[in-house]
């Protein structure tokens, strides 16, 4: 980040479709005086504290014992490790990993999101590349249909897709030699990712269009078939777009409550968001719970943390991926 003269790292062809958001070199601004800038910085620091405070509050509350959650102290008066501890029944304060299979939930979310994101990245890339590179009959019609599906609210397909999985579930139960696939299992959460996703196809197609056609023609001259050209030339060149797809889908899986809510029944199969929602219901006083808020806070922190880590690692891809959406309009 220090060397502003460094060439943009990933841009291929004519600038590439993923914009350089902030790293672009600009001429020094003549108008911003020092005083003005200082005022802005003070303002920004104030706003930053406001934006960060919920995280700080959450972190602090996670390490407070039961009853102290709402003292809103920045540093806990009494410290408490709420994640693990002796398994003593209710009047005693509870510990997160004792009250629910939280380890399972985290692991389920991790493997479902990684598997789903990998599948959707490559299936979308295949389709996006075809729309960008090949000329074939009905291409524009099909692409228009693809864009139209972006507009469709998910609620419309929610019920029939659920019923479809329900049917598959009954069919696989009737035929014991088949693995049990259907509602109540985790398959519905990641199998659809194998068929590409309209938004990512659109995003990646933009990127593939930015790669000069000559590269592909050169590979063809070298005797590559279409698929090996895709694998050897298109995939490596489109890596930034693929990474954006991957992290966006991971994020989508960590954000999703509705699908797990519909499909999962056994506590051990839950994903992290669904699990934390159930914990919240169980211990939240308004929901008739016991008021073990320290457990809720510890769970919430566990839910937030992986996203922060992912963001820390892939920050520039997050920002670029978001910025490219704005170009759609």
């Amino acid at each position, binding site marked *: 980040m220090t060397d502003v003269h460094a060439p943009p790292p990933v841009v291929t062809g004519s600038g590439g479709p993923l914009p350089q958001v902030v790293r672009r070199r600009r001429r020094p601004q003549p108008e911003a005086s020092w005083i003005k800038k200082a005022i802005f910085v003070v303002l920004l620091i104030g706003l930053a504290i406001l934006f960060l405070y*919920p995280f700080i509050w959450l972190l602090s509350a996670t390490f407070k014992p039961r009853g102290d959650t709402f003292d809103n102290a920045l540093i806990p008066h009494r410290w408490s490790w709420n994640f693990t501890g002796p398994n003593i029944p209710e009047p005693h304060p509870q510990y997160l990993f004792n009250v629910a299979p939280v380890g399972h939930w985290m692991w389920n979310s991790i493997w479902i999101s990684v598997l789903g994101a990998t599948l959707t990245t490559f299936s979308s890339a295949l389709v996006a590349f075809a729309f960008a590179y090949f000329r074939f009959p009905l291409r524009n019609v099909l692409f228009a249909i693809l864009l139209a599906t972006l507009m469709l609210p998910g609620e419309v397909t929610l019920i029939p897709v*659920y019923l479809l999985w329900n049917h598959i579930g009954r069919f696989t139960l009737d035929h014991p030699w088949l693995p049990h696939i259907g509602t109540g299992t985790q398959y519905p959460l990641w199998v659809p990712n194998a068929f590409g996703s309209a938004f990512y196809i659109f995003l990646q197609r933009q990127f593939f269009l930015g790669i000069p056609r000559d590269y592909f023609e050169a590979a063809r001259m070298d005797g590559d078939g279409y698929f090996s050209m895709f694998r050897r030339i298109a995939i490596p060149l489109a890596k930034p777009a693929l990474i954006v797809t991957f992290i966006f889908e991971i994020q989508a899986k960590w954000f999703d409550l509705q699908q797990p809510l*519909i499909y999962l029944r056994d506590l051990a199969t839950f994903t992290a968001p669904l699990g934390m929602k159930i914990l919240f219901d169980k211990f939240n006083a308004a*929901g008739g719970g016991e008021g073990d808020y320290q457990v809720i806070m510890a769970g*919430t922190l566990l839910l937030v943390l992986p996203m922060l880590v*992912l963001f820390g690692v892939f920050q520039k891809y997050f920002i670029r991926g978001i910025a490219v959406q704005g170009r759609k309009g």
Partner: protein
Amino acid sequence: MTSVAVPSRTAPGPSRARRWLSSFRERETWTAYLFILPWIFGFLVLTLGPMIFSAYYSFTNYGVQQIAGIEPTKSVGFHNYKEIWSDPKVALSLKNTFIYCVMMVPAKIIVALVLAVILMAVGERLGGIFRTIFYLPHITPPVAVGVLVIVLFNGGYGIVNDALRHIGIQGPYWTIDPNWIKPTIAIMDVWACGGTMVILLAALYGVPRHLYEAAAMDGANALRRFFNVTLPMISPALFFCFIILTLAGLNQFTQAYTAFFGAGGAGGTYGVDAALFYAIYIFRNAFVYFNMGYACALAWMLVAISLFITGINILVSRRFVFYQGEQK
């Protein structure tokens, strides 16, 4: 070339339709279709097919007996759609959703725009750090946001009311008072405005500097430059955010569901009417009450509403949105 009609002596070439059909014999065509096969399959099985079924179910009494195969599926004609008009919960959930959208969308865009403009003004290096900070709420899972709504905005003990008390204001019971529930959710949405901010920031960086210089030369002050140069130039991005946020608002589910709906203590369910958004009402009809036919009708209603609102937005945008390179 084409204007000079030279009568051809050779036989006419194949017609357009014939050429189009013959392209199916080419290898490239088949390869292309092989490549897009995953999407075509997914589209047919997970989108188009379900859409047709959803439209069909919306005219039936499909429900829990039909899933179990106890009773046959019966056509009920337009009954489900008529029911929508007389169902007070539909009116309530639509009202809630619209109120929420009207508060959330402009507030989110304005705050995101203010942040983006300030980040622009302080320059890249400092702006980069703050941009990261402002972006963090955007990657907070909505379930966590829903939990935070309840604990931070707790009327008696929440830190928000604590802070307000310090400056002498008695805050409302945010999460209990029906009038304050939607603003509270909207406030948390504004907190997560980082995505919108990044889109607008990218748009701001795309405004050519010479326009500002020209405007400054003409004697326009900073405020006028903002309203007469910046806003028109970033209007496509603003419009994009407006449409996306409106659609997201119409589909608001997770935060509100986490905070205000769910399984109660004794195996029952609880819900707060003031937080009953349209998507939540569809969900509850489909998967809590198992009125699936009715839920399908509600879902198609949402499609109609989404198309209607987007259509109006596009019509209005013709007046207000300035696209560069429009006059080619």
